[in-house]
């Protein structure tokens, strides 16, 4: 598909046009951190800081979501279970965050089909933004990804001085660009080369590497290793790693109701909490923090690869950046690498 150029001065018009028939989400600055918000105009965007605190996973797999409504009680019944469809665009999503949807797809759109996830995924156009300034704890390259990867987006923007180089990746992306073709100029091989340079210098600034090759078989022999006890000593069980992780997908389902109406609501849950697995009988298969820390690491680096053929990590680094006690997943996996021998 033909790649194009968007002059930066035309970005406001581009966003305005998108917003006229889509819900547009973009990274905005808020209280010193960055977060994806529903935006109306480009002035709200903050394209400098790309690692939003909460990953844009929350736009497709909502933190809270009504599954259906009911009348409560012994004569209760379902009153509505509709799935709403709305067209949206996630603008300036980083390639690693876009990849999280590819990782989550088999969970929500595999043997079991989750219509809430699927309808949002299907109706959302992902416009990526090449990462030109990776963060200190970024390690997407360890997971075969790249700061300029266009594999998991519909369109990829790369910021060049006063213009964006716009790579049109999918049919969905092409249709969008075609519908606004008057805003774009033709691109040349100069822009392509400029993008390559940006990506290469980005890759050079990624200083951290995770040794995760062959991790599945290494973990097979380490279930009872004291590493998990030692790591768990530090963990305070706050669960922030799971809430900010772009590939964590655990949820709880809770009923909220008054006397006359109610709804079953899905909310993100965390495997770091003891209640998560606590049986009504009192039995808990993961009673200690050791069990829970171990399960989280195994889920990402053993169970998920075994079930879905891919490591459930994008290398975004959020769990490292925001862990209040500095548990570092790269260090942990490096320890597995060393101890497994």
């Amino acid at each position, binding site marked *: 598909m033909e790649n194009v150029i968007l002059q930066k001065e035309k970005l406001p018009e581009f966003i305005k046009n998108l917003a006229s028939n889509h819900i547009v989400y973009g990274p905005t600055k808020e209280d010193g951190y960055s977060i994806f918000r529903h935006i109306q105009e480009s002035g709200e965007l903050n394209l400098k800081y790309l690692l939003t605190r909460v990953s844009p996973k929350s736009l497709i797999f909502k933190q809270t979501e009504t*599954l*259906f409504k*009911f*009348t*409560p*009680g*012994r*004569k*209760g*019944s*379902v009153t509505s*279970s*509709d*799935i709403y469809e709305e067209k949206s665009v996630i603008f300036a999503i980083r390639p690693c965050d876009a990849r999280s949807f590819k990782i989550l797809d088999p*969970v*929500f759109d595999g*043997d*079991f*089909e*989750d*219509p809430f996830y699927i*309808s949002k995924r299907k109706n959302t156009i992902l416009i990526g933004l090449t990462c030109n300034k990776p963060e200190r704890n970024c390690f997407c390259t360890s997971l075969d990804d790249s700061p300029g990867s266009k594999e998991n987006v519909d369109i990829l923007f790369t910021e060049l001085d006063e213009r964006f180089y716009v790579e049109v990746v999918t049919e969905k992306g092409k249709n969008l660009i075609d519908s606004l073709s008057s805003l774009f100029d033709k691109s040349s091989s100069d822009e392509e080369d400029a993008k390559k340079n940006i990506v290469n210098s980005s890759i050079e600034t990624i200083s951290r590497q995770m040794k995760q090759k062959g991790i599945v078989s290494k973990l*097979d022999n380490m*279930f009872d290793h004291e590493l998990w006890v030692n790591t768990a000593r530090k963990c305070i069980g706050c669960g922030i790693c799971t809430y900010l992780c772009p590939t964590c*997908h*655990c*949820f*709880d*389902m*809770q*009923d909220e*109701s008054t006397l006359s109406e*109610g709804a*079953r609501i*899905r909310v993100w*849950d965390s*495997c770091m909490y003891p209640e*998560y*697995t*606590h*049986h*009504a*009988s009192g*039995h808990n*298969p*993961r009673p200690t923090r050791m*069990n829970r820390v171990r*399960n989280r690491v*195994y*889920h990402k680096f*053993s*169970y*998920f690869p*075994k*079930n879905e053929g891919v490591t459930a990590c994008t290398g975004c680094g959020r769990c490292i950046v925001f862990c209040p006690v500095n548990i570092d997943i790269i260090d942990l996996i490096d320890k597995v690498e060393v101890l497994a021998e």
Partner: protein
Amino acid sequence: MTVVNPYSPLSATISEIREEAVGERPIKTFKLVLDDEEEKKNFSFVPGQCVMVSLFGSGECFFAISSSPTQKDYIEVSVLRLGKVTTELHQFEPGDSVGLRGPYGNHFDVKGWEGKNLLFIGGGIGQAPLRSIINFTIDNREKYNNLSIIYGARTTSDLCYKEEFEGLRKRDDVTVHLSIDVEEEGWDEFVGFVPDNLKRLNPSPENTIAITCGPPIMIKYVIQNLLELGFKDEQIYTTLEMRMKCGVGVCGRCNIGNLYVCKDGPVFSYEQLKNLEGDM
């Protein structure tokens, strides 16, 4: 286009409630009938499978279906009063409504086990999924060889399905061995734990499949004793439970290793479990 919402349950009505166990640990069996005739006709399951039962306003629970699929037009679940939803359900009366989704999970290999001796070893509420396959094999009696049941509970008031066991005892093609954990007046059968009763009865592993369900500690010692009796790993089956929310392998909490009990189970062979490292 109407998209199916798999989280939204079908409406069902409780048509009958039986008290199975009384006292501190009450168990009731609820007979559930789907309200929609078409859905009722289409609902089919195999012994071992489970359903999600919804109480609107309280939540959902994952229960093994305790009736046999040979009984058409309804399903039964046997429920121990324990947590929020089950305590609420125990206050329900015939005519009350619940939500139902499923059936979920894998099932006992009732086809593959034709021609074999089946040995059922249950403890407490763990008899619920076994009741489904027991009644199924009784209704297809000619397809199976010897059927024997070893079942125990803490006290006589904790024993489930007492009348049904009396009925089975009148037949000469199934044997029933009951036990309670501690001595009670008027009890003339085995006193002690289920694994000990199993050992005492010394069943032959020859052409036999042993299926056990009960509290985790009972399952552990039953399996240990079965192995001592000469049963091979692949002759031993159990059905497990975990705290669950979605029932379809998405919400994450019921895993043992990389397997989800709701989706990849709840029925596991010991051959599978033995090689599975995970929190149980």
